[in-house]
């Protein structure tokens, strides 16, 4: 044999294969190595070596997956068959794993967790978002409740539907059947403020629930949605916001909603928690509340400043106190502290100055203290808010980790099930029989089958274990109305709705401004790479199949295993 670089490389590859091979196959590796010295041609040597290394690697894999088989004596009968009957211990192990995995589905908590874990694929598979709009599960429930004229059921669906017209129709019908449910108009009206029914609903709500700022905020939102947030405020908007600022309280009917959620969920046995407790995408407060409040607060402060400049300190104080009252009212719903209540230190400082002008020293000192306290609270709140987000979204948060484990388990379950289905089809096609005794599969197929069954069982366990505490929170909410941990469940559901890996957030400093807070992987990026991988794998498989067929045609006797 000529001692060229390719020859040395070929010998190296084959020796590596021999080291990898089980002891009973090493002689055969040496046999192939012995022949290497008598082969003519550089590329022929390489091909020989690669083929041999492949055989040895396969033997190593078989020994790894089926150690008993590699040690067993020659089987009796059918010695030349390319396939063997399904290996009994593997069949028993695989069957047991499969049966155990299927048994998991008998547990309601597991079925619930599996449904939750499937939500991650909705945005990936339905790229056009039509499914998001259609909400088949809710539509089905809507048909059910309408059939039996269940007003509470209609209200439940109405506050969740993404289809505005349908939501408004159901809310109207629910109140017609059960007038006590009129508060539902405050929720649905806030979500679809531009609906033609809303002005009439707001009028009735004002009469039914006097002193609540909500109907006014809905009207203000309606004006905003018509004109845009940047347009100069119209009299109607100003009037609505003045009504809101002069209201005694703000009630978004969260208590009534929770009671309704529990009643309907129990009545219809709704096992999917995201249908019941997740209303993040359909908040009960109108979405423009913060922006409107901030805008009107600024206008009111400016009006106060003008009065103060005219020497009307009392008038100015009235305006500032009005702002302070409204900011406190909205504050309880505010998840973004630096936003609306960020103006509070400024308002208190102005109040202190106005009282000083009136000669009321104690009141002035009181508001000076309040301004300092508000500033301090604001800073602490900001730090806490940022820390909370980092903990929830960062790699140390328990909830995103649990969500990730559940999502990965779901992906592993689907992959294992897919493997088993493909394998079953191949075995049936190869065996041409449904009789278990006649089913035949090679050792690699046995290994893959075993891997699929074990994978299905392991992923079922890893889905069940981290999901169980969240199922307990949901059950407690339904049974006792305990809402203390609903926030954790909502966060978990939100994370499991996003595809794998998108639940991890980070602060990325930008060169020209504050740090940008966003996910490591965006949902759009995940969807793009997911479909890219599917396309590449699909095309790769097609090319491999086409290549295999072409090779088979060109060399009908070679290239295919005995």
């Amino acid at each position, binding site marked *: 044999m000529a001692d060229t670089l390719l020859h040395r490389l070929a010998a190296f590859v084959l020796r590596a294969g021999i080291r990898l091979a089980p002891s009973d196959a090493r*002689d055969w590796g040496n*046999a192939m190595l012995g022949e290497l010295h008598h082969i003519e041609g550089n590329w022929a040597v390489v091909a020989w*070596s690669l*083929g041999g290394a492949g055989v040895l690697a396969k033997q190593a894999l078989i020994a790894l997956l089926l150690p008993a088989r590699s040690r067993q004596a*020659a089987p009796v009968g*059918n010695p*030349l068959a390319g396939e063997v009957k399904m290996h009994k211990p593997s069949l028993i192990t695989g069957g047991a794993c499969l049966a155990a995995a299927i048994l998991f589905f008998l547990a309601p908590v597991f079925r619930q967790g599996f449904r939750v874990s499937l939500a991650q694929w909705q945005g990936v598979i339905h790229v056009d978002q039509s499914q998001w709009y259609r909400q088949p599960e809710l539509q089905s429930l809507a048909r059910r409740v309408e059939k039996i004229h269940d007003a509470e059921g209609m209200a439940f669906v109405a506050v969740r539907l993404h289809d505005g017209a349908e939501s408004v129709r159901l809310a109207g019908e629910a109140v017609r059947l059960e007038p006590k449910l009129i508060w539902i108009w405050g929720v649905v009206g806030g979500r679809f403020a531009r609906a033609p029914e809303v002005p009439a609903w707001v009028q009735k709500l004002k009469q039914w629930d006097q002193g609540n700022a909500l109907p006014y905020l809905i009207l203000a939102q309606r004006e905003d949605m018509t004109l845009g947030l940047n347009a100069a405020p119209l009299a109607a908007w100003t009037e609505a916001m003045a009504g809101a600022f002069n209201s005694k309280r703000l009630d978004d009917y969260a208590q009534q909603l929770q009671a309704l959620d529990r009643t309907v969920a129990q009545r219809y046995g709704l096992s999917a928690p995201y249908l019941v407790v997740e209303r993040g995408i359909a908040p009960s407060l109108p979405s423009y509340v913060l922006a409107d409040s901030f805008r009107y607060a600024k206008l009111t402060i400016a009006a106060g400043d003008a009065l103060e400049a005219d020497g009307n300190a009392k008038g100015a104080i009235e305006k500032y106190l009005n702002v302070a009252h409204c900011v406190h009212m909205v504050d309880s719903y505010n998840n973004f502290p630096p936003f609306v209540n960020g103006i509070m230190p400024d308002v208190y400082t102005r109040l202190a100055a106005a009282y000083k002008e009136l000669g009321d020293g104690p009141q002035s000192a009181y508001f000076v203290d309040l301004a300092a306290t508000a500033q301090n609270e604001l800073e602490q709140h900001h730090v806490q808010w940022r820390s909370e987000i980092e903990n929830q979204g960062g790699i140390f948060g328990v909830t995103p980790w649990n969500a990730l484990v559940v999502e990965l388990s779901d992906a592993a379950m689907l992959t294992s099930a897919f493997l088993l289905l493909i394998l079953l089809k191949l075995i049936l096609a190869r065996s041409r029989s449904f009789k278990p005794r006649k089913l035949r599969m090679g050792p690699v197929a046995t290994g893959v089958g075993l891997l699929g069954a074990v994978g299905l069982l392991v992923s079922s366990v890893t889905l069940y274990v981290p999901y169980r505490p969240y199922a307990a929170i949901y059950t407690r909410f339904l049974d006792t109305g305990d809402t203390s941990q609903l926030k954790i469940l909502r966060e978990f559901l939100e994370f499991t709705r996003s595809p794998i890996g998108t639940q991890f957030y980070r602060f990325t400093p930008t060169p020209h401004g504050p740090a940008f807070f966003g996910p490591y992987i965006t949902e759009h990026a995940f969807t793009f790479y997911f479909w890219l991988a599917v396309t590449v794998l699909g095309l790769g498989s097609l090319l491999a199949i086409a290549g295999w067929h072409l090779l088979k045609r060109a*060399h009908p006797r*070679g290239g295919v295993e*005995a």
Partner: protein
Amino acid sequence: MSMKSIRLSPQTLHVLDRFAMEPAAWRYGYELSRETGLKSGTLYPILMRLAKHHLLETRWVPTEEGVPPRHTYRLTPKGLDMVRSEQVAARKPLATRKPATVGGRA
């Protein structure tokens, strides 16, 4: 097990055919590969399986110094009996038969 029920791949049949031509001769792996057109990745699993079922016997042949010994193969009496039974059963050369997995049972 009846010989008629044995499932043979075309590659295995081809290898057996080559052995049956000169049953007493010891054959090298590379020589068989050239005669049958089978690559090492296909040929050696066949040889391993035949040897495992005692249809082939093997031995190592020393070569010149510095070159590894070579592995050689020939049919055992059991292997020869089986090949002949197969040939009689098929009444045609083994190499021309279709594989069981493609054209039904051989």
